[in-house]
């Protein structure tokens, strides 16, 4: 893997979004990944709809939570994702209003990624942003810098927040993952969270996944 990589500089990441008072992080993590996959495989960066997943992904629980692997499956079964503009975010569940004619992107499959962070870095640099799920310990009060909580406090077994890794690198020789969150730009570093890389910090390597776009 290259020593550092940032998909924000390569046009594969849309602006930071805000899930509002809703536990829909899973939808934002997945749409962020599909946005990246569509850009890298079909050449267009589109901002995709999380509301469609909240309303139409019956395997998951909208604001009460959901799983990326279920969401990929729902996107496949539904026939694709509409854009944010066509199916805008409301922050609470409504009746499903998806129409296949309006779907702008589709996915063919989804894969689970390695738990080896070096392999994850190599995969990210070549294939695009990665959906991950982490323990959100400390994130309520995170302002900036590279977070590296003590392992017992940020156990990889207590995963409770899904986000998107868009890059990695080093700051003053401290390795980090650059993570796109969905709590708006007035949180963290303009909406981004920087987490220590290489130590399995907060379980960042335990649930990495991606859609596949042929």
């Amino acid at each position, binding site marked *: 893997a290259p020593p550092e990589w940032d998909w924000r500089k390569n046009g594969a990441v849309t602006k930071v979004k805000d899930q509002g008072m809703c536990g829909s992080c899973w939808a934002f993590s997945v749409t962020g990944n599909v946005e990246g996959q569509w850009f890298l495989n079909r050449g267009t960066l589109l901002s995709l709809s999380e509301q469609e997943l909240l309303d139409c992904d019956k395997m998951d629980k909208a604001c009460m*939570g959901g799983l990326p692997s279920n969401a990929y499956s729902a996107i496949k079964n539904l026939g694709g994702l509409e854009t944010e503009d066509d199916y805008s975010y409301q922050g609470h569940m409504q009746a499903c209003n998806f129409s296949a004619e309006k779907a702008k992107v589709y996915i063919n499959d989804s*894969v*689970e990624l390695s738990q080896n962070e070096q392999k994850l870095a190599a995969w990210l640099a070549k294939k695009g942003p990665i959906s991950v799920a982490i323990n*959100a310990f400390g994130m309520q*009060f995170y302002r900036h810098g590279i977070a590296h909580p003590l392992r017992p406090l940020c156990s990889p077994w207590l995963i409770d927040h899904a986000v998107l890794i868009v890059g990695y690198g080093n700051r003053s020789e*401290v390795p980090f993952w650059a993570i796109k969150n969905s709590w708006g730009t007035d949180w963290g570093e303009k909406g981004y969270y920087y987490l220590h890389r290489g130590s399995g910090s907060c379980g960042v390597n335990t649930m990495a996944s991606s859609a596949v776009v042929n």
Partner: protein
Amino acid sequence: APAQSGAADAQGWGPPPPELLGPARFALEMYNRGRAAGTRAVLGAVRGRVRRAGHGSLYSLEATLEEPPCNDPTVCQLPVSRKTLLCSFEVLDELGKHMLLRRDCGPVVTKVTDDGNEALNSGLPLLTKDPLSQDFSVKMASIFKNFVTTYNRTYQTKEEAQWRLSVFASNMVRAQKIQALDHGTAQYGVTKFSDLTEEEFRTIYLNPLLREVPGKKMHLAKSIGDP
């Protein structure tokens, strides 16, 4: 199990409703553990709710504790006047056995000032004679005012403002603890979530399904460079 309504869900302050008495007394016992007679805190008002789950019940309590005055230099380095603490406890009761899961306490004041800014000051120990805590509360009030302005917060009632100020103050302490326990370069402090309790933040913004439910099985991607 959904929270029970009725006494156990009492929202107002007052003497502990019968159902909360047991766990409230257990929490006080834990708080006073190791203290000699005469130095133990006393339970004041209690409110809270209970959630039933399986064979147990999870009590989320908010209680005021009255700390006795302390002038004995062998017990406390500085003389401490009578102090009221606002505490939140989580007590798990399983088959009659109590377990303290969480304890957060911070100073509050029980009298109201007359300087016209009651909502923000009455939640802090402004009236205690203790110069240290006076300084603390002046600073905290100013930080909280900045927070309210920065994030455009509005609170429906004075009571809510008081409550949110006390949550904010205890969150500042929590953020400092998290800061002390982080060995990266991250800075923790005031964010737009600083007036939410940990439970509110977890319930509204996080996603417990991620650890509770196994998702659909996906096959493993080939590693990069894998022939």
